[in-house]
């Protein structure tokens, strides 16, 4: 994507960044090659990127089009899911038991929320913008509150999507398991919300790109697309993001909170792999499989390129640097590099495992620099312990 500021630099800053935002939206939509995928992502793209439905200051209603699937014979059909259900039941925890008594000072140099070098201050200064010591801690605080806000919004999406998936899934053992996931996601909403409200006192609006992904999977009527969107893509994104923050933060309450959440999420991805491997390899046509393969790739790119914390840009740098410059700063920041590595090292093996990374699409992954994650362990082989150990 090119830097629109060359064309628009005579306009007021607000308009410059708006035009950049439109070009970016256009770029997202144009880059989708498959018309079917565009059909699935396009309307969500318009609602999120152009209409900012998530930022209108009013609740958002998303109509559902899926079918609730009942089975009156209650079959025992998926032993692996039944096992996950058993583990999920004993793995329940109470959000109240986290050490909430911990006093959190976002500006405590001894226990920083995120490390100094998460965002590259040098790059910002190289653009001629001076940020002093105090502003650096303030900016780190904004960045952390932004991330946690997106986690919270993502968890709200996960809560409703998990409920939908539980209705729509065709495996009975999957439905029982799904009920525990709904509970898990409810608890995740609870703890992130409580952390933001009682400790950081700041909540950012939902990022437009995150809105697009949530909108798209909530309104898609096909259960396997919901699964793919929710259990593989969003959960993969979540694991990447939570894992990164877990690794980097020195704030003990946040660390503990993330540790508990990561253990739940590991089960969620495992469930997705179980359900889709079966379905994609046995029950759909090659044409349908290809469509899903393309969709997953587009969403993966969306997740890689677009989580640029524009809400933090609006708060801090609008008029001081261009949106494209900010994108560059975030893109190259240490924290984001770490995040992408963690996310894709989880996501890519899972896509391979469920049959959505065939030789047909490999060149595009290669081009995007994502093939190096191909050999990793998929979620069904990965325990929560291993997952957390990897983050040390």
């Amino acid at each position: 994507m090119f830097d629109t500021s060359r064309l628009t630099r005579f306009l007021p800053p607000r308009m410059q960044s708006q035009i950049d935002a439109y070009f970016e939206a256009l770029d997202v939509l144009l880059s989708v090659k498959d018309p079917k995928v565009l059909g699935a992502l396009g309307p969500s793209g318009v609602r999120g990127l152009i209409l900012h439905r998530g930022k209108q200051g009013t609740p958002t209603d998303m109509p559902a089009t899926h079918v609730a699937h009942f089975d009156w014979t209650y079959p025992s059909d998926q032993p692996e899911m039944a096992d996950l259900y058993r583990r999920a039941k004993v793995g329940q925890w109470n959000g109240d038991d986290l050490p909430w008594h911990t006093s959190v000072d976002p500006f405590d140099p001894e226990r920083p929320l995120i490390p100094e070098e998460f965002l590259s201050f040098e790059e910002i200064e190289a653009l001629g913008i001076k940020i002093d010591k105090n502003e650096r801690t303030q900016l780190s605080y904004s960045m952390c509150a932004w991330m946690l806000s997106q986690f919270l919004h993502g968890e709200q999406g996960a809560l409703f999507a998990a409920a939908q998936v539980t209705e729509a899934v065709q495996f009975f053992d999957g439905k029982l398991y799904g009920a525990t996931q709904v509970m898990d996601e409810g608890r995740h909403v609870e703890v992130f919300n409580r952390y933001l409200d009682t400790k950081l006192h700041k909540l950012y609006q939902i990022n437009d790109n995150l809105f697009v992904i949530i909108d798209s999977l909530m309104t898609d009527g096909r259960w396997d697309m919901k699964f793919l969107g929710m259990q593989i893509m969003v959960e993969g994104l979540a694991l990447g993001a939570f894992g990164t923050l877990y690794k980097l933060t020195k704030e003990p309450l946040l660390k503990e909170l993330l540790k508990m959440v990561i253990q739940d999420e590991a089960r969620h991805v495992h469930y997705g792999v179980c359900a889709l491997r079966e379905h994609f390899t046995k029950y759909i046509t090659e044409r349908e499989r290809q469509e899903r393969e393309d969709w997953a790739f587009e969403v993966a790119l969306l997740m890689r390129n677009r989580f640029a914390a524009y809400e933090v840009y609006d708060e801090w740098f609008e008029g001081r640097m261009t949106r494209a410059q900010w994108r560059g700063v975030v893109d190259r920041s240490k924290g984001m590099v770490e995040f992408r590595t963690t996310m894709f090292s989880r996501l890519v093996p899972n896509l391979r495992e469920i049959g959505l990374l065939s030789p047909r699409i490999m060149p595009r992954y290669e081009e995007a620099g994502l093939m190096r994650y191909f050999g990793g362990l998929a979620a069904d082989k990965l325990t929560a312990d291993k997952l957390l150990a990897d983050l040390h």
Partner: protein
Amino acid sequence: MELDKAQSGGERANEARRGSGPAALLPATIVVRLEALVRDVRTVLNDFTGARPAPYSVREPLARHLIAVTPEPSPGITPRRLRVTRVVRETKDAVSLTLTDPEGRRITFVPGQFFTVLVTLASGEVLRRAYSISSLPDEDGAAAEVTITIKRMPGGRASNHLNERVAEGDVLDVLGPSGNFIVTPDPAARRHLVLIAGGSGITPLASITRTTLAREPESRVSLVYGNRGEADVIFRESLESLARDHADRFTLRHVLSDPPEGFTGRTGLLDHDNVTRELDAIAASSGLDADAAEYYVCGPEPMMIAAREALLARGVEPARIHEERFSAPARRTTPELPKASALVEIRLRGRTKIVSAAPGQTLLEAGLGASLPMPFSCTMGGCGVCKVKLLSGNVTSEEPNCLHEEERSQGFVLACVSHAAAPCTVEVP
């Protein structure tokens, strides 16, 4: 706050749908779509004019996050040690002890709760007494230090010990905090708390007053506080300074039975008539909206009875009257303890276990001793957390305790103050 705007926006939209104007002529679904369209167009226009909302909103702790939680039962009754960091003599018969955790863990509590203090006398005997917290928690619901206030009871062994012997640097063993006589701070609330305190009953109400004034900018507090003489008034200065700082939202009304010269407040005891007159005065000066007022009463038993009657006589709904009783231990009846051990069958979340309760062992101790995760908090009959349903058999309980009449009639007993007098079966609800 962003959320509030969203809510009121939604309400307005609903009104528009029901109400007058051209919108009333259209079917509701079309109105909803039109509204959405208007919002979409406005959003896109705002993108260019720069009139977008701020990308973030400032958040405050919600009541949901601060509500009291029952601590997970630990395998036994293990008290927590707290260090006394300050001793303040409030009156000649009352002392405030400020406590902190020696390991620096902050203490989570809700205004109105109390600690059970385990007082070990020189003889080795351990007494358990409830003392309310009078300080306020930080915004996130915990605090690095808490203050409890202890009034000396005539002949009270624990209260005299705490008033005379405890010094800075000592450690106290406590359980809790416990209790449902609480006000969970809610920054969005608009309520009128009417507090009626007698003597040392001020302690929980002081915490409630301080917290509400600090955290609920839209709420008001009216405090009626009865004492003998001026020298008996606990927190006199700090309450007065609160009244000065929040003159528009906080009314402080002293009632003294032995008033000094020149006292302009009401004189006499807080009996039925005086409570009624005080409530009339509050209603006259600041209004008493039946839908916004909540009543919190804490003090000696005769005052509590009088206040309750006076409130009911005014037509206050019983659900709006909250009471905290701490019976003076002298008046507490410890029933004759059973002489032999008895078998107790305890049912808990689908599990059943038969334990043997030794004479002198409470049901709670017997259950915990057998590693059943029975819930409890104060261990002295003051919070109700340990209540169990007696399905068969017989127990003797210390009275009075905090069970409500209704719970009693349904067969509930408090496991922490009950002994099995015969083989019995109880169920943890």
